[in-house]
């Protein structure tokens, strides 16, 4: 079994699916010979040919629109958007078409496609390369939003996304593309969508997070454990739809909830989780729900980007406040 990084795992998943499903094609900017700016598609064009893995002209709305057109006619496109900051021209196509085709035609035409994009800060990237705007897509009916947090999860969730009969926005935390390696068996086994994953069991406080923030959150949980505090850490993974059952069961056990995300706070996905727990788990709570998030400001350029993002200290301080309530 190979030890691979998150980005290697994505490449493996796409290669598996290209190999096993003739309907699968990859398209995007620089995904061909160059293998993508982060090398997620490295070697795939050489292996599967220009028909299956190809560079498109530079127009993101077009990439989404033609992917939709292909998907409705029986293909399984995987489209890459180079950075989250360039994803917004696709919004017209995603909200007006990808998320609507099945419904508006009563199931006659469907849209099984994946739109992949790296997201999040922490890699010293230029302006408009570091935002976390997953909540925009979580607000759109008819599409799934999925974020992996490890090589294992990246492999299994991307396979699941490609095989899903409905459109999936697959957002990749680029800060952890090469942060660590895991043994990932290249066996074509998909993980379940629409569920979250418990990274660490605990009984004192529930920490819900996703993407790269799982690393800071796990570190925070480690530090807390030295003071005898047992944190349960949940990797949300499925940003839309959200697996509320697992979160509510955890909160029933711990009575305390802290949500950690890199994205700005207002109307973030954390707000929705907090609202649902308030609606359905209020009487299990021993204190207020807290959020540790990015600020409601424009993401700073990289000299200050780390100060925008939640730190381990900010997470542990918030956990302590929550336990003191």
């Amino acid at each position: 079994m190979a030890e691979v990084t998150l980005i290697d795992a994505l490449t493996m998943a796409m290669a598996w699916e290209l190999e096993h499903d003739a309907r699968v094609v990859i398209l995007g900017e620089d995904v061909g010979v160059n293998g993508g700016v982060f090398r997620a598609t490295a070697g795939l064009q050489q292996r599967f040919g220009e028909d299956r893995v190809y560079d498109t002209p530079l127009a993101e709305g077009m990439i989404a629109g033609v992917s939709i057109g292909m998907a409705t006619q029986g293909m399984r496109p995987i489209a890459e958007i180079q950075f989250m900051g360039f994803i917004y021209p696709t919004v017209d196509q995603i909200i007006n078409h990808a998320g609507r085709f099945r419904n508006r035609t009563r199931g006659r035409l469907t849209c099984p496609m994946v739109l992949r994009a790296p997201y999040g800060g922490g890699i010293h990237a230029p302006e408009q390369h570091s935002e976390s705007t997953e909540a925009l897509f979580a607000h759109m009916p008819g599409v799934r939003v999925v974020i992996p947090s490890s090589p294992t999860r990246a492999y299994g969730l991307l396979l699941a996304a490609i095989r899903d009969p409905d459109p999936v926005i697959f957002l990749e935390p680029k800060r952890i593309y090469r942060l660590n390696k895991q043994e990932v068996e290249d066996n074509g086994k998909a993980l379940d969508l629409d569920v979250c994953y418990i990274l660490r069991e605990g009984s004192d406080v529930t920490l819900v997070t996703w993407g790269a923030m799982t690393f800071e959150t796990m570190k925070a949980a480690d530090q807390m454990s030295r003071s005898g505090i047992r944190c349960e850490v949940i990797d949300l993974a499925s940003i839309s739809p959200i697996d509320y059952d697992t979160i509510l069961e955890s909160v029933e056990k711990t009575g305390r909830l802290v949500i950690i995300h890199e994205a700005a706070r207002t109307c973030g996905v954390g707000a929705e989780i907090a609202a649902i727990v308030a609606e359905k788990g209020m009487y299990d709570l021993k204190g207020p729900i807290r959020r540790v998030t990015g600020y409601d400001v424009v993401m700073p350029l990289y000299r200050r980007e780390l100060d925008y993002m939640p730190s381990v200290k900010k997470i542990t301080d918030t956990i302590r406040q929550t336990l003191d309530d």
Partner: protein
Amino acid sequence: METIADFEIQYSQFLGPDGKPSADMPEFAKDPEALIDLYRQMTETRVFDTKAINLQRTGKLGTYASCLGHEATHVGIAAAMQEDDVLAPSYREYGAMLYRGVKMSEILLFWGGDERGSDFRGPKGDFPFCVPIGTQCLHSAGAAMAFQLRGEKRCAVSMNGDGGTSEGAFYEAMNIAGARKLPVVFMVINNKWAISVPIESQTASQTLAQKSVATGFPGIQVDGNDIIAVKHWVERALQRGRNGDGATLIEAVTYRLSDHTTADDASRYRKKDEVEDAWKLEPLLRMRSYLTDLGVWDDDKEQQLLDEAAEKVDAAVQEYLNTPKPPIEAMFDYMYEELPDFLEEQRQQAIEYGDTNGGKHG
């Protein structure tokens, strides 16, 4: 300085507004029966359109976009297509949709506020009505990409208006179609008006056909009120696509004789004289005149056609009016292949609170 690129745009018309041939007729147009069939389709479309407006005026249909004046363009495009080609319409191309087997009652259902109107019983692969302007051009390029990848001899056709040529999606779709030699035909239906904005405010381009020049494939302008020209050139364009020669843009010049929709009043922004002049160019009259000159058409046949069309339309109207509202839960049941757990609770709520808003709509 030297000229390093040059282009010219051809214009084609076979049947003039006076009903007289203005060029040598293409082969298919030498068969009067074929022309009668096209005339019949155009007439049925107009009868349907007139009825739909009446339904809206009497409160039996929502806002409706009339296709008055576009019949030759719409029917001509579909008549050129093969059954397994795919059409990506905008929202007023009923002549094309009906020809391809969409039911009149389905069109009425769509404008009557019912998603089942886009669940075509006929052309299963055709795209539904597309309201966000120009976005369907990308779907036709994508469909063409699917056909090309699978090695199928099929083409996609999108229908976009003059206003739609200002949209990025239109150019982006043509650009990739050029770059990848996709089997797609971009129809630009230039009816001179995008709601209240005339073509002169839309672009300084001399023709819309030349918009293809920058994307590397041919564009041609045809008289969109001459169904023979439309059918002929769309057939040629489709053949190009099927032969692997790539995309074509066809600008069909016609005129929107109606308001933009039933919610619009075109007299606010355009001159009566202009509309009166446009009526002199309309597509049905010239074909009727030509068929009469050929000795294959007369007033009796015309009356019989109108009666039959009215009967057909009335039956469709009855089918539409007799279609009960969709069940409340249908708004949930086609969101995903399988309903995610979190939507189940909302679905139950919707059923429980169904009709508590009075249920007056529809």
